[in-house]
């Protein structure tokens, strides 16, 4: 069974600084998808970034980028130039064969 682990329940970062959120997963599959979702306080969960396992190049979306290490089964999210609006819960997710598994989440607080 696929599992997703986020070992940092809470993190904080100063505005304009860079922060990295960790995620590891366990699977025996070769082709799958990995996601980072953001859930702001009392707001809708939205997709931040997505990575296809068959692609070696790390995905990037503006200030958000990932470090995908397939052999190590690691999928960290880097947020550059952190903004107050980045304050949210961040969930790492693993998708395969119409199944999506979520980690426990990391609560990120951006401080002014």
């Amino acid at each position: 069974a696929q599992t997703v682990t986020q070992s940092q329940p809470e993190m904080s970062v100063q505005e304009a600084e860079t922060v990295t959120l960790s995620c590891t997963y366990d699977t025996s599959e070769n082709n799958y998808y990995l996601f980072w979702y953001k859930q702001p306080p009392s707001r809708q969960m939205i997709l931040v970034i997505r990575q296809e396992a068959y692609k070696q190049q790390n995905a990037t979306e503006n200030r958000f980028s990932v470090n995908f290490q397939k052999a190590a089964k690691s999928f960290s999210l880097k947020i550059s130039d952190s903004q107050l609006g980045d304050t949210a819960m961040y969930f790492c997710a693993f998708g395969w064969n119409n199944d999506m598994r979520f980690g426990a989440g990391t609560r990120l607080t951006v401080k002014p």
Partner: protein
Amino acid sequence: EADIYQTPRYLVIGTGKKITLECSQTMGHDKMYWYQQDPGMELHLIHYSYGVNSTEKGDLSSESTVSRIRTEHFPLTLESARPSHTSQYLCASSDPGANEKLFFGSGTQLSVL
């Protein structure tokens, strides 16, 4: 504007009441999901559907039921609510392709007294 809607946003009810949480999407997605999420915790899949007249139970055992009579509508029903059902319920949908991204509703925060 294409989106996914959940109502009510907040609900406080007494034990034993029957409730239905509504979820509708205007994106024409075949796949829809219900997740249960306790505060600050991970999401647990409780129901999903691949299309009209298709419903399946997820990983987390739930006393709720769902129906999918129309593509856009995926309501969740609790026949007799209990305090243990207090939680946030998130509805989501996704594109027909495998492992496409999920679109989430704003959630329903349910409190059973």
